[in-house]
């Protein structure tokens, strides 16, 4: 099949995708890198000058930066903990011989298809609102005073919303992995008298290890970029209590018009994302051979 003619044709067929993605990667990133060394504010574009490392130093010395890095970590790890543990539990539950498995699957997967602004607004208004939300109704029913979620626990509230959106993803992938588990092996272990927790620890968990890794890595990529959920609920506040790195950079660029500072923040975000990406590429790359 690999004659010279078909190889030439193959190169021609590959070229547009490769060129487009190459430009998409290199041009904006190069511009970000360049801007990160400029004193450049959109409110005062005439005063643009070379800044050296100033933007990085400024970003680094800003207390909001450390708050944002911390919040990013808490957000990512919090959502990962809920979705992975919850996902394993729910996947095992759905995998049991139950009636209506198809419908249960559909109900569980649904939140994943809800766009982020809608998910956040549903939770903000229908569920967590201190006077009209369902949680407030429940609290009043038990005689407790309702919690003002976004004022008292802004970051926790956002973690709950994002976890709700990503729990279906984790569940679906872990369920797919679970269903490829050899039932004969499980039966053999059961006949040999292995108790349920031993079967889970030594058979189920090792079998799902790869899927769990994939869930963690892919979710991390998306969770580092959480934006709309914060925008429509807390707007990053109170103060910087629910500002993550993405939101901090957005504020610098769009609200402070600080092009240089936002670009320096962007480069820091790229470095962070790349640390995660290296691991993901290894996990996925192994599957290619």
């Amino acid at each position, binding site marked *: 099949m690999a004659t010279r003619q078909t190889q030439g044709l193959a190169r021609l067929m590959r070229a547009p995708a490769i060129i487009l993605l190459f430009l998409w990667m290199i041009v904006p990133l190069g511009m970000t890198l360049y801007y990160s060394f400029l004193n450049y504010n959109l409110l005062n574009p005439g005063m643009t000058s070379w800044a050296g490392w100033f933007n990085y130093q400024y970003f680094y010395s800003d207390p909001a930066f450390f708050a944002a890095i911390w919040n990013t970590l808490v957000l990512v790890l919090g959502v990962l903990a809920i979705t992975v543990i919850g996902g394993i539990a729910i996947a095992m539950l759905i995998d049991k011989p139950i009636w209506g498995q198809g419908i249960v699957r559909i109900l569980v997967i649904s939140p994943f298809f809800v766009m982020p602004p809608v998910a956040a607004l549903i939770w903000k208004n229908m569920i967590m609102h201190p006077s009209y939300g369902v949680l407030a109704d429940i609290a009043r029913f038990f005689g407790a005073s309702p919690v003002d979620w976004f004022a008292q626990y802004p970051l926790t509230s956002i973690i709950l919303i994002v976890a709700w959106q990503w729990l279906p993803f984790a569940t679906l992938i872990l369920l797919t992995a679970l269903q490829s588990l050899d039932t004969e092996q499980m039966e053999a272990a059961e006949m040999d008298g292995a108790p349920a927790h031993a079967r889970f620890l030594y058979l189920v968990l090792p079998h799902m290890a790869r899927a769990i890794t994939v869930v963690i890595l892919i979710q991390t990529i998306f969770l580092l970029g959480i934006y709309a959920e914060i925008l429509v609920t807390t*707007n990053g506040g109170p103060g910087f209590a629910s500002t993550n790195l993405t939101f901090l950079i957005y504020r610098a660029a769009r609200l402070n018009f600080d092009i240089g500072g936002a670009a320096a923040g962007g480069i820091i975000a790229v470095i962070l994302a790349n640390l995660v990406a290296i691991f993901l590429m290894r996990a996925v790359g192994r599957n290619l051979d």
Partner: protein
Amino acid sequence: MARATSKNARIGWTVAAWFVALLIFFPILYTIITSLKTEQEAIAGFNLIPSFTLESYQTVQSQNNYWRPFTNSVILAVGSTLLALVVAIPAAWAMAFSPTKRTKDILMWMLSTKMMPAVAVLVPIYLIFLRTGLMDTRIGLTILLMLINLPIVVWMLYTYFREIPGEILEAARMDGASLRDEILYVLTPMAVPGIASTLLLNIILAWNEAFWTIQLTTTNAAPLSAFIASFSSPQGLFWAKLSAASTMAIAPILILGWFSQKQLVRGLTFGAVK
């Protein structure tokens, strides 16, 4: 599972699974229910039975000009996906059927572009859009969404195409099929299911995109994700109306999503979990 399970255990698991499933689905269900209430009912405390009024749907459509963002969503999601397919089908085809030593590296590199955080290129993309007049235009956003999803499209198509056995081509050639016949009658029918799944998943991803749509639109090109985000303050839209707008924004994609569960796993894990 092949094991015999007692009926009681089965009932127990079924009840538990349905309870968890309904709990997870509850926010969506309650939104649909609230969208059928009047505004007074909507804030009158917990109530699962609405008065089944379509008032809110009518108000959202007449007052908030719902159809413009809806049309924008359709154009952006479908347009960017079709554009991506036009570029990706030949590329994935070439990589699957005449792979070279570098094919794997190229695929990994494509995947790596997906790892770039959107916010890192917010500044340059925003400035480019501002200076070239692409700001708040459908064409600008369509191209951008196409670029964002291109790596996933190439990857998904590649994993599907790779499953088409090469022997079938040889067999066709032995029977005297021309290259045109090969593509038209042998490969295309086998490739269509993969292309359809890719199309479906990417429409879902593009429809739900909410970073760039919010950054790069105001009114003209704003799709539903940006439209709904503008109602973050409750005075803009009351409970029942917010629910109606939300229900209309998620219903089409929820239904598409239910049909593409299996492809979702494969597409979003880049073939790492099947």
